[in-house]
């Protein structure tokens, strides 16, 4: 599998696509999120696995998002996600709240090829009350009155994440962050950015194989150095708290976000293209 250019990858994301993204602590491809924002894709339906962070907030701020399904949207230590909060208040996005294990479970149902999976908890929560697509049944294996929630399988159109490296066969290594594997398994297509492409086959190496996602799940790979930033990438680089804090400060207003985006999302490409 030959790597493609980041902007060529972003060009394969159609308006209205359902996009699954890991949060800031689990290898988001911020590079691809920015490329999608640059392209001006519209009406995306974001899926937080299991929560949403910086990448989701900038896509919302850039006007790319119609809907978000997630368990929380947060910038972590930097506080609430400002563009998410503003869009919710303005009514410009639909928010479908879930709870973390439910996000995982809905993807696992697709991973196993079943139409639903059960999950404990949830009963009596307004999360459940506001999800007409979730069902409550009597547990067929339990005593009378033991009710349980069934969650429908969720299959995002596109899974997006950032791995450490890809090999000559298109296998991607990202270590213990296995939720990215679930995203790849459950999504119809997976678009993966990596720091680098190396020779060989990770599946032939017992040490690397267990942290590898097989190329069979991966549609295309683009090289994006420091592509998770400001999020951390395993032992490769740390979280850039100052960058996120500045974003949180500027993005409090739409005008502030636009100023930030002009500098951080749109300007570098114009410069690079010159």
């Amino acid at each position, binding site marked *: 599998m030959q790597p493609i250019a980041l902007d060529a990858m972003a060009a394969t994301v159609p308006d209205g696509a359902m996009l699954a993204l890991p949060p800031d602590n689990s290898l988001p491809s911020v590079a691809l999120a920015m490329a999608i924002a640059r392209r001006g894709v519209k009406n995306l339906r974001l899926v937080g696995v299991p929560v949403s962070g910086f990448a989701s907030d900038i896509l919302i701020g850039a006007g790319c998002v119609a809907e978000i399904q997630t368990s929380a949207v947060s910038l972590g230590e930097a506080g609430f996600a400002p563009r998410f909060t503003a869009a*919710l208040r303005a009514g410009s996005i639909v928010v479908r709240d879930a709870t973390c*294990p439910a996000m995982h479970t809905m993807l696992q149902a697709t991973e196993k090829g079943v139409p639903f999976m059960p999950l404990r908890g949830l009963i009596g929560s307004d*999360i459940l009350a506001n999800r007409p697509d979730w069902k409550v049944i009597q547990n067929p294996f339990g005593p009378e009155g*033991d*009710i349980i929630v069934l969650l429908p399988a969720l299959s995002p159109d596109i899974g997006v994440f950032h791995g450490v490296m890809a090999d000559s066969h298109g296998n991607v290594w990202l270590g213990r962050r296995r939720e990215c594997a679930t995203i790849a398994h459950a999504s119809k297509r997976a678009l993966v950015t990596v720091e680098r492409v190396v020779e060989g086959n990770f599946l032939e190496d017992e040490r690397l194989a267990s942290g590898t996602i097989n190329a069979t799940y991966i549609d295309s790979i683009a090289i994006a150095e420091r592509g998770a930033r400001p999020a951390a990438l395993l032992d490769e680089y740390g979280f850039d708290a100052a960058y996120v804090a500045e974003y949180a400060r500027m993005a409090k207003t739409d005008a502030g976000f636009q100023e930030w985006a002009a500098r951080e999302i749109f300007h570098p490409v114009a410069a690079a293209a010159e």
Partner: protein
Amino acid sequence: MDYNTEELLAVTLARLIRDPSAPPARHIAVGAASPVPAAACWLVAKSGAPVRLSLLHKRSGNPFTEGTRELFDLTGQGRIDLFFLGGGQIDGQANLNLVGTGEWPGKGVRFPGSFGSAFMYMMTHRTILFREEHSPRVLVDRVDNISALGISAPGVFRRGHAQALVTGRCVFQFHPDRGRFSLQSLHPGETVEDIRAATGFDFDVEGDIPFTPAPTAEELALLRGPICDEMLETYPEFCARVFNRKAAA
């Protein structure tokens, strides 16, 4: 001996963790935004208790090798004995609102979201509620939206409930049988009347309410030394503010 609020709270949480009348805390998970509960857990562990700590979002040595799903699977298996939860609103029946005020999904003030609370609260053997802000805005009679339910209907599978609610002003014990909090101790300088005025929900007051015990010299030494060392990587800002320690560059 001088101590600050966070140190008092950490010591208080540690005492609740060790409460011999509660189910044993062999394995505790601590969420990302929880430096005070994390310090409390380290205090229990560094005092020699045989406890396993799974600190989420720990960058090096993250305990989970199946991704973030593993915390919830572990909890589903019944292997997590104790978890901490907070909330934008907490009510007198220990219901938690992490979603937002006003109309669903938080058209008033939107909080980040429920995270795993709707699951963890019911599947963990016990939960300690922690919220430093103690005001009628946070501690309400009835939450606007229930992210996580305090008491379940009979027959609904549930492993545990809130054990207590620790705020910046007092400790409440929770009684799932009667669905109410009772005042357990007052932090130094507080009175029952102060707490009533600052609390939006009704609670029980039984007998004389003692003050929350102050940290001992040993506890403070542990917090400021080896525990700060452990927390520096994950909570640099907290360590700088509370312990006046900065991570090496």
